[in-house]
């Protein structure tokens, strides 16, 4: 009886097995490798032979002069991205919703969704070209209106804003999809009743549209909190240079340079683990909040 109960689902287990093995190796395998963060890892000795040093690597990490600056860069860049990445798509969706010509609306949507699908390698190449201080399109324009050209990608003052603006530029269109979907879910009878009562379009937006999409705004805001330590590796890596490390170096790029370029394996693993733990807490926390207050479940 026991055997029949267990083996009846054997085909289901078989289906999962190949994927399960791959996940165990390539997602759980690295978690074992985290022990390197507590060792003085030497490639010649391997994980089993390397010397244990406890929290020594963390002492080194937090004594490292740039660590605090890097954490600050990461958090400030990603918070700016979160705020701008919420505000711009909401505003654009509300404006798109006011557009009465359907054909034009669709064309605009087609155009603003596009940058989402291009990689940061492509966009990095494009940005380097158009932001060039000598021949770039943007600086040509700045000179025409009578200002000095700016070296956007080499200036610590401007670099974080370039990151935030170009990220918003890439993603705002795609992010409107979800708000536009929520807007179509608002009961049209509410607008009809408001018109009968003499509400202007602005009043309708304020008292029907915005409250209608408030749950989805709150949900996305909460879920985005899980990303506070992800300031966008792909983007930063393709845009930064040693000149702007001071304002643009983030945890992920620092881990890459320390670990793979400088072969400081234990040091890099220690920072990486620190980031993984905090990210995990933030993500689980935000999912919990989303579940508690917005009844959101991922499965």
């Amino acid at each position, binding site marked *: 009886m026991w055997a029949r109960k267990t083996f009846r689902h054997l085909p289901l287990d078989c289906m999962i097995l190949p994927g399960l093995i791959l996940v165990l190796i390539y997602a759980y395998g690295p978690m074992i490798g985290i022990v390197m963060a507590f060792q003085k890892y030497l490639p010649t000795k391997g994980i089993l032979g390397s010397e244990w040093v406890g929290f020594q690597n963390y002492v080194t990490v937090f004594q490292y002069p740039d660590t605090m600056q890097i954490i600050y860069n990461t958090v400030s860049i990603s918070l700016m991205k979160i705020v701008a990445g919420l505000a711009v798509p909401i505003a654009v969706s509300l404006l798109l919703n006011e557009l009465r010509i359907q054909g034009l609306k669709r064309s605009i949507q087609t155009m603003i969704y596009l940058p989402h699908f291009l990689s940061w390698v492509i966009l990095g190449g494009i940005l380097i070209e158009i932001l060039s201080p000598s021949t770039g399109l943007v600086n*040509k324009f700045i000179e025409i209106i009578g200002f000095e050209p700016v070296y956007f990608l080499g200036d610590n003052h401007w670099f974080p804003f370039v990151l935030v603006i170009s990220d918003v530029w890439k993603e705002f269109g795609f992010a409107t999809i979800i708000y536009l979907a929520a807007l179509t879910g608002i009961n049209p009878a509410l607008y009809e009743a408001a*018109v009968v009562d003499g509400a202007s379009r602005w009043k309708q937006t304020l008292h029907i549209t915005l409250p209608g999409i408030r749950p989805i705004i709150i949900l996305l805001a909460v879920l985005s909190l899980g990303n506070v330590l992800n300031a966008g590796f792909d983007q930063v890596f393709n845009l930064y240079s040693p000149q702007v490390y001071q304002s643009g170096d983030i945890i992920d790029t620092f881990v890459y340079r320390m670990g793979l370029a400088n072969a400081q394996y234990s040091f890099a693993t220690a920072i990486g683990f620190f980031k993984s733990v905090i990210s995990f807490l933030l993500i689980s926390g935000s999912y919990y909040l989303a579940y508690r207050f917005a009844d959101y479940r991922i499965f």
Partner: protein
Amino acid sequence: MLYRRSLSSRIFAVFNMTFLVGMALLCLAPLVHVLAVSFSASSAAKAGLVTFWPVDFTLQSYRFVAERPEFIRSILISVERVLLGTLLNMLLTVLIAYPLSKDARSFPRRTLYVWIFVFSMLFSGGLIPWYMVIKETGLLNSIWALVLPGAVPVFNVILLLNFFRGLPKELEESAFIDGGGYWKSLWRIYVPLSAPSLATLTLFAMVGHWNSWFDGLILMGTPEKYPLSSYLQTVVVQMDIQSMIGSDLASLQQISDQTAKAAQIFLGALPILLVYPFLQRYFVTGMTLGSIKE
């Protein structure tokens, strides 16, 4: 609807339309500029004369790029990666999503499996241990390094399993009564019924593989094995001339030329632009795919 359109609402409509069209053009402008540069003479590009239309139209940069062996080779590697990677992604997505879409009463081990997969999405070992595992499993320098470690797209699995759950259970029950098993039910009922969702996920997987550059950069020891995105990263962004194998100085200068770079950027984006119309038809459904839960 009957509206009395006041003057102010008309003014708003005009401003709104202008603003949104402006935003839309802003999304395309950088691409159009790069396209214009790629068709311009390199002297005009160097002088910063090109805006949105080619100056001294020439195909020189494209001819130059087409003759670069490493460019052609990296495209072939990318194509191989996209085909192999997408096939693997989709196969595993379907095979995992189906059992996990059963409820815990009829498949008690489901809960454990779900947590194993979801946890792998929430927590990661970090870059260095991940690299070490790929190295230890002997994948470095092979195409498998680009497709096996990311072979299970957990997020897509969740989307698809939510979609599977929305399909009527009665269909499967009738298949069981007719003597079919789980495998028959999956291939004959679930897969055909979810064809549009699978098309969406396939397109997303293809775009993801085409765009992916970092893994190629660190897992492929030699530039000859880089897929196109990694190759472009070194040439266009890093300007690392080491990846130009066996080049003479003249062609080195030419490859770092603005117009040649612009041509390569545009060619790298071209496949995405080509599948974009198909993508666009599907991705709105993709975004809301599986969002209906019971």
